[in-house]
C-alpha cells in the first residue's frame, strides 16, 4: 500500500496536502483499494461548508457507495472536474490526478487530529489485524 510523505491522513482514509491556508484532499491508496473500481464521484458544490469528520461527498464503486469524510472543516473552493468523466483516476492515481477537492481551512488546529505518514502506517496495520 503506497503512502506519501508530506501528507496528513485521517482515520477514514482521506489524505490532506496543506498549502498555506488551503488543503487538497483525496482518498488514500488503501481506501481506493478497499473501495474497488470507482464508477462515480458525487462531488460537492464549490462554496459548500464542511465540518471535520463529517461526510461531505460520495464515491460509488462497483461494490458499494461510500461516504467521504472531511479531514478538516472549511469551505470547498475547487473540485476535481476530471472525475466527472474519469472517476477511475481515484483508483489509478489516488494521490495525484485522482484528488477530490480543495478546501479553504477554517481552523488549522484541527490538523492536530490528523496523522502523519508513520502514524497512518501504524493505524493501517491495526486495521488489518
Amino acid at each position, binding site marked *: 500500500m503506497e503512502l506519501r510523505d508530506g501528507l496528513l491522513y485521517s482515520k477514514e482514509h482521506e489524505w490532506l496536502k496543506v498549502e498555506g491556508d488551503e488543503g487538497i484532499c483525496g482518498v488514500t491508496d488503501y481506501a481506493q483499494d478497499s473501495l*474497488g*473500481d470507482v*464508477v*462515480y464521484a458525487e462531488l460537492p458544490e464549490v462554496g459548500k461548508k464542511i465540518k471535520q469528520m463529517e461526510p461531505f461527498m460520495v464515491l460509488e464503486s*462497483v*461494490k*458499494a457507495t461510500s461516504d467521504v469524510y472531511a479531514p478538516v472543516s472549511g469551505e470547498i473552493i475547487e473540485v476535481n472536474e476530471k472525475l466527472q468523466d474519469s472517476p*477511475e483516476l481515484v483508483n489509478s492515481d489516488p494521490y495525484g490526478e485522482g484528488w477530490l477537492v480543495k478546501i479553504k481551512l477554517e481552523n488549522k488546529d484541527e490538523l492536530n487530529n490528523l496523522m502523519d505518514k508513520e502514524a497512518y502506517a501504524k493505524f493501517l496495520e491495526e486495521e488489518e489485524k
Partner: protein
Amino acid sequence: MTKLIYELSRPGKRTYIPVKKENISSKFPHELLPSKFIRKKKAYLPEVSELEVVRHFTNISQLNVGVDTNFYPLGSCTMKYNPKISEYITQDSQFKDIHPYYPEKFSQGALEILYETASYLEKISGMDKVTFQPAAGAHGELTSLLVIRAYHTANGNPRKKVIVPDSAHGTNPASSALAGYEVIEVRSNEKGMVDCDHLRELMDEDVAAIMLTNPNTLGIFEQNIKKIADLAHEYGALLHYDGANLNAILGRVRPGDMGFDTIQFNLHKTFATPHGGGGPGSGPIGVKSHLVKFLPVPHVEKKKGGAYFLNYDYPESIGKVRAFYGNFLVVLKAYIYLRILGERGIFETSAGAVLNANYLLGLIKDKFDLPYNERYMHEFVVSTKRYKDKGIKALDVAKRLIDYGFHPPTIYFPLIVKEDLMIEPTETEDREVIEAFADALNSIAEEIDKDPDLLKEAPHVTPVGRLDEVWAAKHLILRYEKTEN
C-alpha cells in the same frame, strides 16, 4: 453471445398467433381512441418466425441461473426453493382470473385468503395487524416508516432521525431518507452486534425509530435486543424489524415479543414465493395495536356473521401505498406454503436453515477467515483476507464458484467486513448439496495456492467471461436502438 430478437428480424417474416375472433375489435384504433393517443410512426417490432421465437426464448431461458437450476446461497436473500404446487394452484382460473373490482360478495374466497394469511403472519411475528399492500420488502420498510411518522405526528412531532446499524441492509437508510428522516448510523461492537453504549449516546427525543434485523446481516443474533427495545421506548422511539432474516427464527421467537413495534416481511424470502424475476415480490407489514389505525386502507376484516369485507373507515390511515390489496397471487403462494408446512413445519424450517448454515461453516472454516467468532444462525460471513497476498479477492472466489456450478454468495456485504462472502444455504438444500458446495470452496482455496490466475480469470464456463463491471456501470444501455446499415 445470443443475438437480440430485433437482430434476428427480417422484413416480412410472420408468426401465426391464434386469437379468438370475439376478442378482436373490428374497429380501427382511431375509431376507439382520441387522436393524441394514436402513434404517428409505425411501431418497430421484430419480424420473426414462430420457430425463431421459440428457439430464441428457449435459448435465453437456458442461460438463466436460478434456484431451479443451481444452488443459490445469496446471503440475506433466503433463496429457498419455491414449491411447484404453489404455481399449480395459483394457475387455477378461480384465483388467476378474479378482478379486484369484483364485489365483496363474489370475492369472499380471496378475502378469506388475505385474512387468514394475515392472521398466520400475525401469529408468527407477534404483531397485532398485518397488511399486504406494500409491493416488496423495501416498500414495506417505507410503509412502516410512514406509519411510524404518522404515529409521531399524531403525538405532536414527527421527529427527525432514524437510527440504523452500520451492518444494515442498504434499503434501511434508503427507506428512512425516502420517509423524510435523517439517517444516523450506530456502530457494531467487536461481537458484530449493535454497540449499545454508542446507541445510548445517539438516542434523544428526535429519534423516530431504530431499524434492526435480527439475526443481523452477519447472521448473529442481537442478544441485547430487549435492552435496545427498552432504550428506544424510553425515548418514545419505535423499533422496526427488517424481516429479511426472519427465516432464522421462524416459529422460535417473535419480533413482537422482542419489543419491535413494526415489521416488514418478505414473502419472496421467508415464505417461498418467487423473487423479483419470477413474479412480483410482496412486502407485507405488521404492527402492534397502537399503530393499527395508521396502516394503509383498506383492512380486510370479518363481520360477526363470518363475511369478509374491506374496511376503509380508518381516518388516520396513511392512505394507500399501492393499488388494491397487494399482490394477491403472491400472498396466495405464501398461504399455500404455510398451510403445507403447518406449525410443526414452520418450527422445523428455522432449525433446518440454522443447521445447514452451521454445517457448511464447519466444513469451510479452516480455509477462510471468520471475522466474528460468534454463534451464527441462518447465514454467516467469512473473509478471503488471508489470500490478499496472492492477489485474490472475494470477487475472484465468487467468480470461480460459477465454474463449479454454483451461484456465488453475496459479496462485499455487510460493509463492515472486508473481502467477505455472505453465505445463506437455506433449509431447502440437502446435505449432499451443502457438502458439494463446501468441497468447491475448499478446492478453490487450494487453487489459490497452486494457480491463482485460474481464479483471476474466472469464470471460464459461462457464455461470456469476466465482465467489466466498471464499463457496465458507466455505459448503461437499457434499450435496443436500431442501427441503419
